[in-house]
């Protein structure tokens, strides 16, 4: 892996690279190679966005995705739907790909599908959906969901909150075998049913697991995240801001001056970089309905990533608040 260490470098006005600057670049490249080995598979995408590999396939996706819980459930309101499309536009312009939703999220699926069609990004999105119903109705729900999204097939389908996972997982694996789906996963949130999630990760063939992890909720560092690494399971992180509570808790404080060392210009980037710098994490999915916020979030997918010492410093700073 390599970290996007060159993102902040500037050449001199003549376009030549001086000897001192060249030495800095070589040092940065060496450091990034070292950090890459230590922290997983981060690598710059062509547009400068940091990506990580899905272990089961090697396909790379940007480390920042887009959640839709609550923020995209705007009903039939045409103004709010246009605002959601604007958020998606900014997300794609910032290099994002993975958008996550669920049948539990009200009108979110249709809002996403409408936005994708409007933006002409249906073929570009990495569509992450869920099945959230009884086994008997699972296939029908997935088809309804697909129609909302207006995509030919989903990239990822996850069993929402482990509901009837014993029966849904074989169905999803059959879909994957038939070429109707690319990846299979499970989700949970807020640290619920962690032991059961770990048990499923140990015994089932999964491509993805989606869990809650943030700078205050770090229990998963002990077992679940290392297990995902051992088992080669990609990890999606929901609630990276504790549904906004983390941001509200720190926004009155100034960012520490050393935040600039890891390319953070605001608290959102600070909190997101903490999450996605964990070596087991593939992608975080902050949700927002504000264009400025998605622009800030996408900034966390660029620039240097914190190393382990910096991560400890970040925790100490936030917990001191």
């Amino acid at each position, binding site marked *: 892996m390599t970290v996007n260490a060159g993102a902040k470098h500037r050449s001199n006005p003549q376009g030549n690279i001086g000897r001192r600057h060249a030495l800095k670049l070589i040092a940065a490249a060496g450091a990034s190679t070292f950090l890459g080995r230590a922290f997983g598979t981060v690598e710059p995408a062509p547009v400068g966005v940091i990506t990580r590999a899905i272990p089961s396939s090697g396909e790379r996706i940007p480390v920042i995705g887009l959640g839709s819980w609550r923020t995209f459930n705007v*009903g039939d*309101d045409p103004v709010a739907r246009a605002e959601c499309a604007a958020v998606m536009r900014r997300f794609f312009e910032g290099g994002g790909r993975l958008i996550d939703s669920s049948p539990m999220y009200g009108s979110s699926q249709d809002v996403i599908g409408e936005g994708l069609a409007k933006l002409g990004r249906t073929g570009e999105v990495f569509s992450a959906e869920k099945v959230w119903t009884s086994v008997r109705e699972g296939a029908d729900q997935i088809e309804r969901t697909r129609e909302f999204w207006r995509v030919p097939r989903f990239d990822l389908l996850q069993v929402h909150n482990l509901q009837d996972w014993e029966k849904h997982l074989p169905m999803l694996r059959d879909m994957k075998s038939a070429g109707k789906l690319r990846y299979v996963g499970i989700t949970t949130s*807020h640290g619920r049913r962690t032991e059961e999630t770990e048990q499923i990760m140990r015994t089932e063939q999964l491509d993805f697991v989606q869990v809650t992890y943030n700078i205050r909720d770090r229990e998963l560092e002990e077992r679940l995240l290392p297990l995902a690494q051992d088992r080669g399971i990609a990890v999606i992180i929901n609630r990276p801001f504790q*549904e906004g509570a983390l941001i509200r808790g720190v926004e009155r404080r100034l960012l520490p001056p050393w935040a600039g060392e890891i390319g953070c210009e605001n608290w959102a980037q600070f909190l997101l970089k903490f999450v996605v710098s964990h070596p087991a994490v593939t992608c975080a999915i902050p949700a927002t309905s504000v264009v400025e916020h998605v622009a800030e979030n996408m900034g966390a997918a660029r620039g240097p990533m914190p190393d382990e010492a910096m991560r400890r410093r970040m925790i100490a700073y936030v917990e001191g608040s």
Partner: protein
Amino acid sequence: MSDWLTYTPETFLMFSERTYRRLFESHNAALWPAHLAVVLAAAVVFVMLFRRAAQSGRLIALALALAWMVVALAWFWTRFSTIHTGASIMAAAFAFEGLALLWFGAIRSRLEIARPTGAFGWAGTAILTYGLLLQPLLGRALGRPWAQSEVFGLAPDPTVAATIGALLLARRAPWFLWTIPVGWSLFSGLTLWAMHAPDAWLPSGIAIAGTAPALASRWRRKQRTPLNANPGL
């Protein structure tokens, strides 16, 4: 940590406050000028309260019943269902309360509304007045635009508040008529609390202000009734 301890009202909040308020805006725009008829109906209920007409109780029950059924259909079934997966259940509950008020209040005349006297009577009148006429003013005072007003007969909270006020004024209202209004008040209060709305305490406050006197009154009646006067014992 037990999984149950991780659940809060915010866990179940499916939409933002902005979306919720804008839904009232589109609801009001779609139903205008029904508001004029609703305000007229509210004024009639208010007048009936202070006139000792024989049919006052029936007319008030009829107005409340229609209000509950309109809210069930126009708000929950048509509008709220676009942002809440449980809206159809809420629509059914509101329709049921509307039918119950129609049957027991308007048809069987078991909702005899007393002219307000004493502390309980005036508490009931205050809650009824708030639900019928004053809730939009509160919204405006909290900085919400008129277009997002919650109006009796079109929106759930003022309809529920007016009903709780009327039940408090009624002589011996059947207990089950309280169930859905109180249940909704608690649910609405938790929803507003999850949205950090400044008036989140109000629905639950109204439910408590309505049920506490009603329960106290029922308890006092039981205390006054000699055991041997109760044919059931």
